[in-house]
Structures are given as C-alpha cells and as structure tokens.
C-alpha cells in the first residue's frame, strides 16, 4: 500500500515537473553569429522575460548551408520552429508544401505594422507564409571623385535611367571609365518597368510590349557604346569594379556600402548615396529577409509570438544601428533622432534613412503571380537568355522578345 502511494506521488510530481517546464522553441537565423551575438542575445533575453513560459534556443546556420539543412530537418520531422529565409527560398519552400500558413496565428493589428508590399511578397493563394524582417533596398552608390573628374555635379547624381545613360556617356568620354555596372535580370527589369509578364488569366505571355523593347534598347545602347563593362558580370563584377574605382556609379542593395567601407576605404571616402532611379512601376527592389514557420514545427503559435517580437519596430530599429539595413515595419528610421545625428557623419546612416523613408515602394520582386511553381525557373531562364542575347547583339531586340514570347506561351500550355 505504501509502495503504491509512493509511486502515485512520484508520478504526480514528474507530471507537474513536465507541465511546468517552459516550451522551448528552436530559432534559426542566417549567418548572424558571431557579429550580432550580443544583439540576438538581448532580443532573446528580453523575449524570455516577457514570455516566461517560452524558452528560445537560438541556432545560427551558415547562409550557404541553410536551405539544405532546413530541408533535411523538415523531411526528418525535426523541424525548427522559426526560420530566417530570403524571399526566393521561402517561396521555393511554399512550393514544396514545407511551410505553415501564418494567418491563424496573427491578427490584422499585427499584420498592419508591416508594409503591405513586403507582406505580399510571400502571400500565396491568399495565405501569409512569412513575416518580413529586414530589407536591403537598392540605392545608387556613386563615386564623387569620378563624377567631378567628368565635370558632373557630384551633389546631383542621375535620377532617371535615361540620365544614367547620358551621364555614362560623359563619364566615358572624359575619364575613360565606365558609367555603371547593371545587374541584369530580364524578368525583374520587366516588372520594374511595369510591364505585365502574364495575361490576366495566366495563360499567355504579355511582356512583348513597346515598353519592354524600349528598356531592351536602352541596354543595347549602353552595350554598343561601351558604357558598361561588356562582360556583364552583374553583382559580383560590380562589387569588384566599384571597389577598384573602375565604375562611377553602382545601383545595388545598400548593404554593399559596408563592404566598400571595409574593403576599399579610399573609395568609401569619396562614396556618396542617392535614391536609385525607378522605372515605370515606381518599385524599388530589395532583397528581403523573412521569418517563416516550417509545416511540421512543434510549436507554431509560440514561434509566431517570437517572430512578432523579433520583427517588431523596436528591435528592428535597434538592429539597424549595428547593420546597414532597414526595418520592414511602418515605423522606420527617419523618425529616430539617433539616426539623424549619425547621418551627419556616416554615408551608411544617410543611406539607411533615405531607404527607410521610401520603404512604401520597396518590394522583393521574386514572385510571379499566377505562375505555377514548377514553371517558374524555366520562365526566368527563357526571358533571361533572350534578354542577354539581345543585349550582346546576338539577335535583334524585337526578334528576341518575339521568340521569348513564343517559348513562354509554349511553356504555359504544357
């Protein structure tokens, strides 16, 4: 009898012990450690204080291995609760049915805090699959010295793409240097110019328009007149060429500033920032970092609580003091006194305030609405290949658009 009593008390105690134990959520971020250890730890400690029943197990994964690790974890049913992904990856994972829709864990008050375009980046079939975290919108970074050498006003860099072309001509003529290095991605150029990619019903290509031809001809002029490096190396080449002082201007995500500052201080000294010229659609492109919840995450509700905490305006503004990025929330950096002070001396802070105040127009344009997930890569590839071929003069511009249109139509019909 005594034994029985003892055992039942023991069982009860153990049950209570387990019941009282806080839920532990596993959170994955991309390559933030060790640079942002202090920041992340303070976020997590504050969160655990505010929600004593949730414990955070923060894991930082290297960027290049992240997607593979996540896929393996989900497939093995050992998924983390909240994961940091860029938009393209997040959409890929939605296509694989690997992410949980977050709608049921958020209310409209919480959704309202973030910019609509950013929330819509990862909205598929009416469901939100991610909460935007931080952005690195495109800006124009430029070398004041080269502009001055070319006799251009370094305080008034070009503000439209046509002005970019004109300025590049002058720079080439007077200094022999290239105007800028574009990162050419065919379908993104079309989106930025407000050219519809697909017809309303999604059955046909709709991008063979005069606007598309005009943009293509703009590139062809740049290429033929040797105003941009002809190797068309895009992002990586631009990074090297700008840091080496070979190009005057570089339209790029703002986090590039930090790179220039660290790797070529002499160029950074003459570097200034301006808003990037926008196309017809008035969209500013920005790679986004988002937080998502895997489909088989053990604690999705707690995970969303954490995500809302991490991406809150308070913690994002705090984060932006340490990194050249801007918040995804409607409360931005432009109101922050501290940032306005910093902007007087630092190009980084100037860029951050500039970008933050135009966040309304920022979007990560990876997603093509109405396109089946498995055709997405093929779609990008067909447009990209013809776009490039036309720029390099391998085929005439109009023929390139015609052929791309025909091939996309064939793809859509399969």
């Amino acid at each position, binding site marked *: 009898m005594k034994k029985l009593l003892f055992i039942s008390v023991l069982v009860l105690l153990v049950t209570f012990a387990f019941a009282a134990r806080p839920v532990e959520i596993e959170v994955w971020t991309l390559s933030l450690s060790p640079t942002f250890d202090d920041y992340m730890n303070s976020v997590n400690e504050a969160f655990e204080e505010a929600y004593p029943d949730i414990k955070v197990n923060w894991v930082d994964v290297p960027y290049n291995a992240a997607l593979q690790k996540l*896929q393996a974890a*989900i*497939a093995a049913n050992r998924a983390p609760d909240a994961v940091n992904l860029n938009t393209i990856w997040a959409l*890929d*994972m939605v*296509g*694989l*049915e*690997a992410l949980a829709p977050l709608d049921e864990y958020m209310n409209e008050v919480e959704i309202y805090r973030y910019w609509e375009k950013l929330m819509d980046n990862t909205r598929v079939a009416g469901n939100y699959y991610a909460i935007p975290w931080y952005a690195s919108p495109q800006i124009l970074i430029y070398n004041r010295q080269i502009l001055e050498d070319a006799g251009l006003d370094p305080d008034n860099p070009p503000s439209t793409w046509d002005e970019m072309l004109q300025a590049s001509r002058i720079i080439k003529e007077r200094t022999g240097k290239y105007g800028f290095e574009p990162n050419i991605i065919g379908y993104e150029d079309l989106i930025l110019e407000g050219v519809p990619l697909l017809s309303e019903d999604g059955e046909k290509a709709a991008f063979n328009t005069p606007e598309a031809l005009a943009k293509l001809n703009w590139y062809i002029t740049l290429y033929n007149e040797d105003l941009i*490096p*002809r*190797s*068309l*190396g895009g992002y990586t080449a631009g990074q090297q060429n700008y840091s080496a002082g*070979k190009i005057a201007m570089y339209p790029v995500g703002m986090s590039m500033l930090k790179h220039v500052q660290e790797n070529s201080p002499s160029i950074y000294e003459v570097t200034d920032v301006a808003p990037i010229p926008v196309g017809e659609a008035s969209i500013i492109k920005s790679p986004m970092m988002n937080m998502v919840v895997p*489909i088989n995450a053990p604690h999705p509700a707690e995970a969303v609580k954490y995500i809302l905490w991490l991406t809150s305006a308070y913690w994002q503004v705090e984060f932006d003091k340490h990194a050249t990025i801007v918040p995804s929330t409607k409360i931005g950096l432009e109101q922050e006194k501290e940032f306005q002070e910093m902007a007087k001396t630092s190009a980084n802070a100037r860029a951050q305030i500039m970008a933050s105040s135009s966040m309304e127009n920022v979007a990560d344009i990876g997603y093509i609405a109405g396109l089946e997930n*498995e055709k*997405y*890569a*093929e779609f990008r*590839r067909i447009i*990209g*290949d013809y776009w*490039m*071929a036309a720029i*390099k003069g*391998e085929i005439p511009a109009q023929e390139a658009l015609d052929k791309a249109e025909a*091939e996309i139509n064939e793809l859509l019909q*399969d």
Partner: protein
Amino acid sequence: MKRMGQILALLVLALGLFLAAWNEVPLLPGVWQEFFEYATPSELLGGLFLVGGILLAGVVLGVSLWKRRTLLAGLLGVSGGMLLFLGAFFLESYFRNWNPFPWIFLGLALLIGSLLIFASGIRKVPQRRVQTYVIAFMFLLLPLTIMGIFTFYPLFRGVVLSFAKYNMINGKTQWIGLKNFQELFDDKYFYISLQNTFKYLVVVIPIQFFSLALSVLVNQKIPGIKFFRTMFYLPVITGAVIVSLTWKWIYAQDGLLNYILMSWHLIKEPVLWLTDKNTALWAAMFVTLWRGLGYYMIIYLAGLQNIPSDLYEAASIDGATGWTRFFSITLPLMRPTILLCSVLSTMAAFQVFEEIFLLTGGANSTSTLAFEVYDRAFVRYNFGESAALAIVLSLMISVFTVINFKFFGAGKKAKA
C-alpha cells in the same frame, strides 16, 4: 528432394503470375492510381520487389532444370523469397485494403523450395569445399550490404524517381510514367546541353595526347625531375573553386589573357571569353584540360615505369632509334593504360560540372548534361526530370565506355 523444390518454385511462379495478372501487384501505373494518388518510393519498391521475387522463382526453375546448377538456383531462390517478404512488408504498411498473406505464403514456399534445391546440391559437394564457400560468402556479405545501401539502392531509387513526380519534403511520389522523359525531349535546354556535352568530348583527345607526352618527358632520369612532376600535378590537387576563380580572373575583360594578347597585338579588342557564347564553352574546356593533364600524366607515368627496361635495352642493341622504341615498345605496352585513361577522361567529360557551374553558371549556352541534372534537382526541385536526365546521361556514358573498350581493348584479345 530436388524435385520437391522445383515443384514449389513452379507453384510460386504460376501463382505469382496469376496474382500479378489480376492486378494484385500494384506496379502498373493504372493500378497504382486506383489505390492512391501518391505513394512513397518505398511502397513503389515494394511492388517492384514482388515482381522481382516472382521472376526469380522462374529463374530458379530454369537454372536448376536446364543448367543443373543447384547451388546457384538455391541461392537465387533464397533472395527471391526475401524479396517477396520485403515487398509484402512494404506494401502492407501502405495499402489498407491489400492482403499480404498470399505473398508471405509464396515467399515461404519459395524459400523452402530453394532450400531443398540447395540442400540437394550441397550433399554432393565435399565438406571442405562447403566450408570454403560459406567463409567466402561471409566475407562477401558485409561489402555487399554496404554497397547495396550506398550504391545499388540510390541507383535503383534514381530509376524509380525518373518515372515519378517527387516532393522531397514530405516524400510524396506520384507515378507519372514516361512523362519526365517526354518533357525532357521537348525541352530546348536538353538539346543545348546535349550538344555541349558532345562538344566537350573533344577535350579527351588533347588530354590523352598531352598527358602521354608529358609523362614521357617526366619519365627521364635527370636531376630535379620530381619538382616538375609535382608542378604538373599541382592543378589536380588544387580545389576546383580556387582554380575556377583564378581562371575567371584570367578570362576577364581586363584580365591577364586579354592583356597578354593585346600587348602582343594579336587582338585589337578584348575578347569576352566567358560571356561570348562562341568562346565560353571552349574557355571552360581549356580549364578542364589544364586540370586534367597532371592527373592522367601520373597514371601514364605508372604505366611507363611498369615497362621492363630490358625491352628497351634489347631494342637499343638491335639498333632501334628513340622513335622506333616509342612506337614499337612504349605505345603497344601502354595500351591498357591508354584504355583506362580514355575511359576515365570520356566519363569525366560527360560528367563535367564544376567548371561550368563555377565559371559561367550554365549561362551563355554553356550548360552541360551534368549541370542540367543539378539545376533540375536542386534549383527547380524537379527531381523526377533530373533523375530521368541522369539516366539518359549514364546510358550515354555506358555506350561510350563500350566503344572505348572496343577501340583500345582489342590488343588484349590478340595477345590471348
């Protein structure tokens, strides 16, 4: 005893075929869809196992009746029985309305039958030899298991995948028959990459020629020759990423190659080696050549040093010159090595991936079959099509390996 076993095997074959004809084996796509839209590969494997088991029963019968190899028949029968058990086990866990018992019964019958056949054979074999067999098979068992898990299973799985649509996250596999292949043959990038892969074969010839020449050169006994051997081998042990980055700089618009060619007045304007679609593939091929030379040189060197020196001495006494010695002694005796190297370099050329991935990323009409295999699987998550492409690629490699053997392997037959 043997008779009994054969009757059991016949029974299994007949009943199995009968059940399969009644669509009891969910293998055919039509039947599959009846059960469920999706299945995991292991369930598909189950169906294939059952069919394999039935067919093995037929093989057991054939081998024991016509060839009278009772031991072999017995062993085949045991594996057939195992396959039937495994198949029943896999399928039972998936199909709720599916009855595994006929198959377990058949597996049991085949197992008993083949053991009977085996026993009848083993009685005639001396005790000593039985022991040798048992020990030998024990030794083979472990490597076979490991190879089974890490080589044969992935191979088999790849074949299954090529007929299916597969979601790697939740393991759902939809059997879609030949649709992957159909889509492949409709895709223009398949033909571009096929063309490029064949163009890439061109690299095999200079690799063979130059590495053989190089190995003859470094086979000389002069002081400091080891230094040269090391230097020629250096590109092989250098990481592909480093090599590609370096070559990317060399090929750049304002890179080393353009600088040299322009300062020698060979070209007026810089050539865009990796951007121009007329030069990009050849530029990548040159990197492969450069990386491969040292590797094949070492193999050739080993072959050269295996040639007995008394042959050369005898030839010298007979008054043979350097060239005659090379063509009459070195080249014929190097034939097996040449075969090995040409097979290896052909296979490597077919599978070229790193250079393309790192130098051009498949752009500018440089994509190859192996690059497409990667792109489809890990960029587009279309594992079915990727597997289908991989199968086409491996079939092509097999064909070319056979051609290589016919071409360079002929000498061996003449000798025998």
